[in-house]
C-alpha cells in the first residue's frame, strides 16, 4: 500500500452559487460572536438571493446591519436558537410581534449541544440552567449527588464557517476571537461551507495550526475581492 497524501483539492465556489444551494427553511449553523468571525460574504449573498424561512443556530443575532443582523433585517429568519439578542433590538421586536421565534440557550450549553451533534454524542449533561427557566421541560439526571440537565444535540443542514485562511485542501486556521463557534460548527453541519479571508497553498498552514481539518469542509468559497 502506498500513501501518496493525495487528498482531493477543493475547487473555489462562487459565493452566489453557495447561496443557491441553500433551500428555504434550512437549519443554518452560523459562526460568529457579535459579527466577529461571521461569514459576511455568505450572509450578503443569502440576503441578495432573498430565500428565507431559516432556522439560525448561532451565538447571537449581532447588531442591525452586521453579520446575522442582516438576515434578521431581511426577514429571512423564522427561528433563532441563540444565547443573546440584547444588542439587536430588531430581533427583540420580531420576537415580541411573533414574526420570529427565539429560543434562548446558555452560551456554554449551546456550544456543547452543537459539539455533541457534531461528534456523535446523544446529549450533554450540564449543571448550567438548573433551577432556572432553562430547566423547564427538560430531563434532570443526578450523577454522584449533583443535578444536571440533559441537553440534546444540535445539528444543522448547513454550517457557514468564517476562517482567517484556508489551504487548497480546505484546512482552516482561525484568528484570535474569531474562532468562537466556528471550529465546533464545522463538525455539526451536514454540508459545511467555509469562507476564508484568504486561500493559501497547501503547506502554508502547518499541521499544528489547523483547527478544522479540510476533510470536514464541503465547499470552500473563493477569496474575497
Amino acid at each position: 500500500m502506498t500513501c501518496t497524501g493525495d487528498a482531493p483539492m477543493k475547487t473555489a465556489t462562487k459565493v452566489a452559487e453557495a447561496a443557491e444551494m441553500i433551500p428555504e427553511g434550512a437549519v443554518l449553523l452560523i459562526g460568529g460572536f457579535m459579527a466577529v468571525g461571521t461569514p459576511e460574504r455568505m450572509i450578503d449573498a443569502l440576503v441578495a438571493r432573498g430565500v428565507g424561512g431559516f432556522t439560525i443556530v448561532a451565538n447571537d443575532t449581532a447588531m442591525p446591519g452586521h453579520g446575522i443582523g442582516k438576515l434578521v433585517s431581511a426577514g429571512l429568519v423564522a427561528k433563532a436558537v441563540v444565547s443573546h439578542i440584547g444588542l439587536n433590538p430588531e430581533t427583540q421586536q420580531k420576537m415580541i410581534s411573533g414574526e420570529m421565534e427565539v429560543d434562548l440557550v446558555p452560551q456554554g450549553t449551546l456550544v456543547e449541544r452543537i459539539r455533541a451533534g457534531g461528534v456523535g454524542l446523544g446529549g450533554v449533561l450540564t449543571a448550567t440552567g438548573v433551577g432556572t427557566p432553562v430547566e423547564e421541560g427538560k430531563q434532570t439526571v443526578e450523577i454522584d449527588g449533583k443535578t444536571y440537565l440533559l441537553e440534546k444535540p444540535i445539528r444543522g443542514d448547513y454550517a457557514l464557517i468564517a476562517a482567517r485562511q484556508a489551504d487548497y485542501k480546505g484546512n482552516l486556521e482561525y484568528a484570535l476571537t474569531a474562532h468562537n463557534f466556528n471550529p465546533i460548527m464545522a463538525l455539526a453541519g451536514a454540508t459545511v461551507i467555509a469562507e476564508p479571508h484568504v486561500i493559501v497553498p497547501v503547506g502554508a498552514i502547518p499541521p499544528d495550526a489547523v483547527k478544522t481539518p479540510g476533510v470536514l469542509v464541503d465547499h470552500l468559497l473563493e477569496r474575497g475581492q
Partner: protein
Amino acid sequence: MNAKEIIARRVALEISDGMLVNLGIGLPSMVANYLPDDVDVFFQAENGVIGLGARPPEGMEDPDLTDAGGGFVTAVPGAASIDSAMSFGLIRGGHLDMTVLGGLQVDARGYLANWMVPGKMVPGMGGAMDLVAGANRVIVAMVHSAKGAPKIVPECTLPLTAARRIDLIVTEMAVIEPTDAGLVLREVGPGVTVEQVRSATAADLIVESDVSEMPVP
C-alpha cells in the same frame, strides 16, 4: 467618587495574583482599571481570549480581537485565543477563579437574577448562567438600589440566573456576604451607616459587631 467607581475599586481588592478572572460587561469591566500594579492576572473574555488587554490605539484595532461586549481590545503577552467550547469548558470545569457580574436582584439565599425582566427586557443570558453555575467565586457588583427600589430582596421575583449561592455582593453602600445563616453585612460604604444600609435593603441583614468601613484605595 461616584457609586460605580467605589464599587469597582472595592471589587479590585478581591483579586489576587495569578488568578484567571472573567469580568462582565459594564460596571464589572471597570474593575480592571483599579488593579494594583503588583497583581498579575489573566482576564478571560468568554468570546475567546485568555489575557485580555486594554483598548488599542485609535486606528490600530483588529476586527478579529474583541471582548465579549464587542469592544476592540488587545491581548497581553502570554495570551491564548480559544474557541467557545474551550472557553466554557474553562468556566464550567472549575478553572475560572472568579467572575464579577452585574445584578438586577440578589436575594436572601444569595441567588442572583441578572438576565431578564419578563415583558420588558429579554436580552438573553449569554454566558451568565454558565459563569454563575461554574466559576469558583462569583462576585456581584451592582449599585445598591434601582431608582430607589431595593435590589437586595427576600426572594428574587425575576427569573434566576442559577440556583447557586453567590459569594459576595459589593455595592456603593455595603459589602455583603451570603452565608448559610443569611446575608451578613461585612462592610459599609464610605460615610454610610448600618441603618442606611438596612433601610435600602429589602432582605434581612445579619449585622455582627465587626462591621468596618469599606476600603476604597
